[in-house]
């Protein structure tokens, strides 16, 4: 099967046939064509094999592995002690109900309010900590502190649309008939079933989307911009000024640390470490001495209290910690 000319003439036909783009008449004559010509028949069978593999992949990509892992973990006993029941909040709104997912209360208790509007949208707001909500379609949304989410209460609308301000992690149940659409600042993000994080605090220069599973489409809301497709491990960054839309290939390993409280640092400069810690714990740690910023640290944390995290950092780099007017100040000799 080395005939390249045959391919270029016939390849598009095979693709159209397999993609279901042919009308019945075209299908019949295509089938006659491959039955009559052994070489075309062989090319068709190779393509069909690949096509079948792609379809199986597509079928598998419909599972939300994060969610599935959560379902299994709930059934399992990993260490003898099970996860805390948590202060799970039941929210009986039309579309949302609170998830039976461990609540991550950080600085005090997470707070939420429901505001009923006159139109079809309702709003959720999380002021402190983070809170997890489950939609009636099975999708789970974890909202970080200072985040509001407006959602459409009309269940029979053709899409599932939410408007986000702040940061949230979305684990979206697959529904090919109703795409899930997130409007975040100047970005619009569209998916069928996947998990991804959106960081769109109003004060940020950018809207950042990182994908954990599935496929996510992202575009600027101004319809002039291009649309990008993001795979797991990819991040899409939309700059507010200039409306530039970029794909960044190396996603931040700590992008959903605010949700999981799992942080991984590998030769990471202290300045960056503290910025992650501040994001995760909503803390206000400052380093007045710029020479300390480039000290590097390699460590990982799993669901530790802020005190324990700071204990490790200060003892590793021989730093001291003081408290002043709501700020935590790190000082030290610098790195050898």
């Amino acid at each position, binding site marked *: 099967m080395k005939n390249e000319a045959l391919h270029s003439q016939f390849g598009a036909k095979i*693709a159209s046939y397999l993609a279901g783009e042919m009308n019945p008449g075209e299908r019949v004559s295509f089938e006659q064509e491959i039955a009559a010509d052994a070489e075309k028949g062989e090319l068709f069978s190779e393509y069909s094999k690949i096509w079948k593999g792609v379809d199986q992949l597509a079928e598998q990509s419909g599972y939300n592995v994060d969610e599935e892992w959560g379902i299994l973990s709930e*059934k399992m006993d990993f*260490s003898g002690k099970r996860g805390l029941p948590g202060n799970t909040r039941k929210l009986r709104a039309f579309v949302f109900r609170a998830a039976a997912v461990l609540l991550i209360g950080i600085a005090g208790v997470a707070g939420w309010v429901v505001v009923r509007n006159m139109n079809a949208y309702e709003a959720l707001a999380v002021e402190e900590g983070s809170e997890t909500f489950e939609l009636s379609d099975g999708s789970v949304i974890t909202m970080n502190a200072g985040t509001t989410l407006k959602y459409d209460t009309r269940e029979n609308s053709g899409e599932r649309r939410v408007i986000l301000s702040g940061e949230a992690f979305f684990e979206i149940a697959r529904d090919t008939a109703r795409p899930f659409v997130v409007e975040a600042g100047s970005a619009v993000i569209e998916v*069928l079933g996947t998990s991804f994080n959106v960081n769109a605090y109003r004060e940020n220069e950018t809207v950042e989307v990182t994908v954990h599973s599935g496929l996510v*489409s992202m575009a600027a809301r101004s319809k002039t911009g291009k649309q990008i497709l993001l795979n797991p491990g990819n991040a899409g960054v939309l700059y507010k000024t200039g409306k530039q839309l970029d794909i960044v290939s190396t996603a931040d390993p700590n992008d959903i640390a605010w949700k999981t409280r799992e942080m991984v640092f590998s030769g990471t400069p202290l300045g960056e470490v503290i910025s992650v810690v501040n994001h995760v714990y909503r803390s206000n740690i400052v380093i007045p001495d710029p020479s300390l910023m480039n000290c590097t640290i390699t460590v990982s944390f799993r669901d530790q209290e802020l005190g324990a995290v700071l204990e490790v950092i200060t003892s590793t780099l021989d730093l001291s910690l003081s408290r002043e007017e709501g700020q935590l100040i790190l000082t030290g000799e610098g790195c050898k």
Partner: protein
Amino acid sequence: MEETFSIFTLMTREKELHTAGKIDKTSFEALFRKFFPALMAFSRKFLPDEDDAREVVHSVFINLWERRDTLDTSGSLKSYLFTSVHNRCLNTIRDRKKFSDAEVPESESDIDVQAQLESMELEEKIGEAIASLPEKCREIFEMNRFQGLKYAEIAEKLGLSVKTVENQMSKALKIMREKLAHYLTIVIWILWNGLN
């Protein structure tokens, strides 16, 4: 540039998942995340109901975790997982037959585990081939195959002609066939020799 291919990569790749042969919570979670979608797809070939299929896959993982200290991990974990799912699915079907007169389709019960492992390798390779497509080509191909958009819908979304979409789809398949040709031959060769 010709990609060199060793049949041994088929066997060694999953070893990364359980270094030192010990299963701890981290490697267990990694195993689950890596194999869950394929195991679900496999399980549903026997048990079309999604909840039934999930129940089987979960029970296999729970069993793996409970037996982690006594399990011989020198063999292939992947093969262990698929074989366990296969056996448990057949048990479920058998038990159902016992308790109901309902006819359970027989045809699917002889699905070969080995063939499933091979097809998973192929899917992995296909995934890599898709990732390596030129950006525009990949975008169009994924919109069609993963998002289920018709040519005309893709053309409208991207501001292209249907003809261009058609050409890009053909190009995607052509590139994938070139990347996979060598691999397809080897898999067929293994299957063939395995049967004789």
